[in-house]
């Protein structure tokens, strides 16, 4: 799968309160959440982005609360993937569970700049910077996470497991 888009840059330790502030968590409607995506990190973000854009951030992206509303808001806003130097643990797990594409790449996180055009080859784990012609590698996706992706997410995977166990 190829993911191509324009980059929006964020720094280190972007927490889930910045991704989707708790004041909007009285709903879990993805469209409502998307209106406020990244609001406390960049007030006008949801108005600026176009479907297919990408986020590139520093270390520990998605730290803090376990709210799944964070990856849901990003996905529903039309952002196609997030690249970071590292991800906080619960966010990482949630992103796979709900089907938001994320890539860990310290190299890409350091070198990619705001508004660069990049192309991610998700299967090979290669990130191409079409603006600078540089190429970076993403850390391989753990094999179990790949199984989840192949099954179509955790819910599908669980469904199959329950069927296999005859319940």
């Amino acid at each position: 799968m190829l993911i191509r888009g324009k980059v929006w840059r964020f720094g280190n330790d972007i927490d889930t309160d910045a991704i989707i502030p708790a004041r909007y968590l009285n709903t879990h409607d993805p469209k409502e959440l998307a209106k406020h995506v990244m609001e406390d990190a960049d007030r006008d973000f949801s108005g600026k982005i176009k479907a297919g854009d990408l986020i590139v951030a520093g270390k520990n992206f998605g730290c803090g609360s376990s709210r799944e509303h964070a990856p849901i808001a990003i996905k529903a806003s039309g952002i196609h993937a997030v690249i970071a130097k590292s991800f906080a643990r619960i966010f990482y797990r949630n992103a796979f569970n709900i089907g938001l594409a994320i890539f860990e790449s310290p190299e890409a996180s350091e070198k990619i700049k705001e508004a660069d055009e990049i192309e991610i080859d998700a299967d090979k784990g290669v990130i191409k910077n079409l603006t600078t012609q540089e190429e970076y590698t993403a850390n391989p996706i753990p094999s179990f996470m790949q199984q989840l992706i192949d099954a179509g997410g955790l819910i599908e995977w669980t469904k199959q497991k329950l069927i296999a166990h005859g319940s």
Partner: protein
Amino acid sequence: MTITEKILAAHSGRKKVSPGELINAKVDLVLANDITAPISISEFRKIGAKDVFNKERIALIPDHFAPQKDIKAAEQCKMLREFSREHDLSLYFEVGRMGIEHALLPEEGLVVPGDVVIGADSHTCTYGALGAFSTGVGSTDVAAAMATGDCWFKVPESMKFIYYGKLNKWVSGKDLILHTIGDIGVDGALYMAMEFAGETIENLPMHGRLTMCNMAIEAGGKSGIIVPDKITRSYVRKRAKRPPVFYKPDKNPKYAEIREYDCSKIPLTVSCPHLPSNTRPAAELFEVAVDQVVIGSCTNGRLEDIREAAMIMKGRKVNPNVRMIVIPATQKIYRQAMKEKLLDIFIEAEAVVSTPTCGPCLGGHMGILAKGEKAIATTNRNFVGRMGHPESEVYLSNPAVAAASAVLGRIGTPEELGL
């Protein structure tokens, strides 16, 4: 094996597990709240399971925006109530019977030593204080576990934190954990189990242990844990609703890292905006005027925390420039505080006392900050906009420092009040 590895091995039917290994483990309790459960419930329905794995092991607790703060929050709480009725869940806690989840479940003996617990709330790591493996997950993970009774985990590496020496006056579990996060950073224990040990921990009462494990997530940790001892046994003796299992680590288990702290050198500590790792000694922050003080949350809303704040407030008044909000974490704590006349002390001091709720900790309700306002709170996060306006600020401290600051109208210490 470490204690964490032993608990995970026992729950995955293996003799041994090693860090990095992926396992499927049985969970003893699954929990979610009014913000996270609605997604879990809709995802659970998609799985198409006939029923939940166990009606007595799923806790749904409306605590974040409850008592229901607006129509949308009320709709979310209603989903929990209806799902609990539909599946006859025994651990649904209605307003008036509830409390902040991570205070309520240990208090009621619904989590016990040796458990594996997952919760769609990042502070689920609190129960490590009892010698359980507990960790925060997302709503979809909870949905899957509600159907199957198990969950996949990567066995974490363990990082050991050894505390020795005598605690300074008013220094508590909160100061130890803030100091530790200040030392290692908000991702210093990323993916790790944080094991707290040493003579100071051996003497630390259970409420301080719960506070420490509660904030393991603020260092990026997967879990916090303390090996059960006398204090654990006496805490669970009268309340455990299921038989506890007291796991112990093997001799010389492998740790990714061991760090030691001389507690006699740890001062009253405050985390400054906008990261819990941005710590400074409380005494250095005397120039920071505050508009609001919050005593409460899953971190520091327990009876001992309320008592500590009351000791400071007794016979004093909240500074005229400050709003002080005290939130006992559960109905039991509220009632006991009432019996001990602690609530009288707060009301006489011109503070408000609220029914249990997470409320202002996450900027939900019951004390939201306006633009430019500053609060000192016994809560767990001081991210941008956490308690209200994105241009407001939150400082984190223990209850004694927060209460002293309420009197002083600025960040200060009990010593400044002659205590």
